[in-house]
Structures are given as structure tokens and as C-alpha cells.
């Protein structure tokens, strides 16, 4: 499986999802600027839409899933020293 199911997703039904907007501050730390309005292509289904429309699940890390196919687009883990690890293998591209 190329799309591992993080624990966050298993225990977070859609009723608990947030929008990408909610983690705009965190994404700005990673990208250096606000990217919630930037288009992101899903590597799984090809859907294209603003990062602000991704489904966000908050657990030990932040998980962003495609709003069309629920595929894993990005994961952000924050380490104990405050640095972040971004796994964006589910993003085909980001355009802004």
C-alpha cells in the first residue's frame, strides 16, 4: 500500500475533520508564506484545489487528506526541538 493509514485517520471520522485553513500558520512556517490559497494537485486522484480545502486531522501529527478521494496528501510531524518534518509525497504539485 502506498497510502499508509495513520492512526489519526483511523480514529478521526470525517465529522472531526478540519479544513486546511486551520493549519495555515503551520504551513506558513514550512513554506515561508501563506499557502492556503495555493492550488495543490492530489497525487492519488488528480483533484486540484486550494490547500485550504484539504481535510485536516489533528493527532500526534497533522494529516492532510484530499477532499475528493481522502488520499493522504501531506503529513507534518513536529519534533521535540520544535522543528517540523513534512512528508508531501501525496502532493503531485503546489501552484501559486
Amino acid at each position, binding site marked *: 500500500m502506498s497510502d499508509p493509514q495513520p492512526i489519526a485517520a483511523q480514529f478521526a471520522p*470525517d*465529522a*472531526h*475533520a*478540519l*479544513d*486546511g*485553513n*486551520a493549519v*495555515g*500558520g503551520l504551513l*506558513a*512556517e514550512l513554506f*515561508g*508564506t*501563506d*499557502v*492556503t*490559497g*495555493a492550488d495543490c494537485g492530489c497525487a492519488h486522484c488528480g483533484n486540484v*484545489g*486550494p*490547500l*485550504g*480545502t484539504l481535510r485536516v486531522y*489533528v493527532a500526534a501529527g497533522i494529516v492532510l487528506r484530499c477532499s475528493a478521494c481522502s488520499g493522504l496528501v501531506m503529513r507534518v510531524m513536529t519534533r521535540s526541538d520544535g522543528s517540523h518534518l513534512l512528508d508531501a509525497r501525496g502532493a503531485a504539485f503546489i501552484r501559486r
Partner: protein
Amino acid sequence: MALAWQLATVVGIRLETPHVKSYALELPAWPGHRAGQHVDLRLTAEDGYQAQRSYSIASAPTGAPRVELTVERVKEGEVSPFLHDVVVVGDTFEARGPIGGYFVWEPDATAPLVLVAGGSGIVPLMAMLRHRATVGANAPATLLYSSRTASDVIYGAELDALATRGDGLRVVQTLTRQQPPGWSGYRRRIDRAMLAEVLAGAGENAAQAFVCGPTPLVEVVAQGLVGLGVPAQRVKTERFGPSGG
């Protein structure tokens, strides 16, 4: 850098409802915001423990280095009880923003505006309505606002005042749990039939919609609006869920 943390000073606190307060913050390096954006707040305890939350901006852009946030006290929450019970005028904490380039209303928009809010989901939509009034926009606008009881309605008097300006704004409310005597609004949760009634003739095919509230409400409303003919890409949503508080 616009998104660096800065020290915000509380310059005013107003009780909106028994569970909701508004906080006016002064931010020395505030670059200005657009209606619909939010700020991150970060509180640091004496032992170094940090808690961070995102709060929608309620105030219209003014050009002043100042924003107003409206915060609901979430039981079992970590940050909102602190804001409600401990913070007083003159206190400081860290803030960064504005954040969000997607859930944003631009005042030059001419599309009919459709706003749907549940509970404190009214906050970013209020920034849009305040901004709309400030700039004198008069494209048709409809707000459908769901609260539990009359005493839970945030900005009630201000909404009444905005709706009587004669600038094309219509405010429709529903009270889901308890209604005062003589209540003429809706008495149930927002559903597809209610959306259809409220939006009939509101130019839904050309509308720009913003929906903010608890996730289940947002799901129902977003699907309902698309079902009524609002193009999906013109339905912008902001869900708030368990990470709040």
C-alpha cells in the same frame, strides 16, 4: 516576516453571550488582514509548556494595528477557559497572522453573498459583514445563522442593525433548542429545505458562499448549497472541530 510571532496586548474585552467574549488586541507589527482570516495565539506557561490555537478575526480590516477576536469558552478546553477566566485588559500573549488566503471575502466582489453560520462560526462571517458595511457594498447578501437559544446569539443587536441599513443584507436566524415567545424565525437545525427557502431568489447560481461552523453543519450546508445550484468551487468552508478550545 509577516508570520512571525509577536506580542499582542489585550486592550479591550467584551462579553457577547454567557459563553462568548470578544478580545481587542493591539499588535505592533500587524500588516493588516482580509475578512475571513484568522490568527494563531500561543500561550506559554511558566514551566515552558505551550498551547496554540487558531481564532477567527471578527473585526473588519481598518488599517489600524488592531484586531478583535471572538472566542467561545469551550468546556474542557485548554486555551479558551484561560482567555475567559484569567486574561484581563493589559495582558499580553504571542500571536501571529493574518493566516488564510482561501476563506476570504474581497469587498469588490459583486456576486450575491451567501453566508451560513452555526454557533461561533459567525465570527469570520461577521468580519465579512462588517467589512461589507464599512465599504458600502450593496450586492445582495444573505446570512443564515443557527444558534441553540436566543441567549447564544452572538452579535444579535449588531446583526439587527446591519439588516436594517437597506443595503441588500437579509438576516435569517434559526434557534435549534429553545425559542423565546413570539419567535418568528426557524426552529430546527439547518437542512436542505431551509436552505432552499432562504435562498430562493438569492441568485444562487452566481452566488459566493461562505460556510462556517461545526463540521456536521458545514457538511450538510455545503452539500445542500451545491445541490441548490451553487457551483462547488464557490462554496468555501471553515470547519471547526475538536482541536479548538
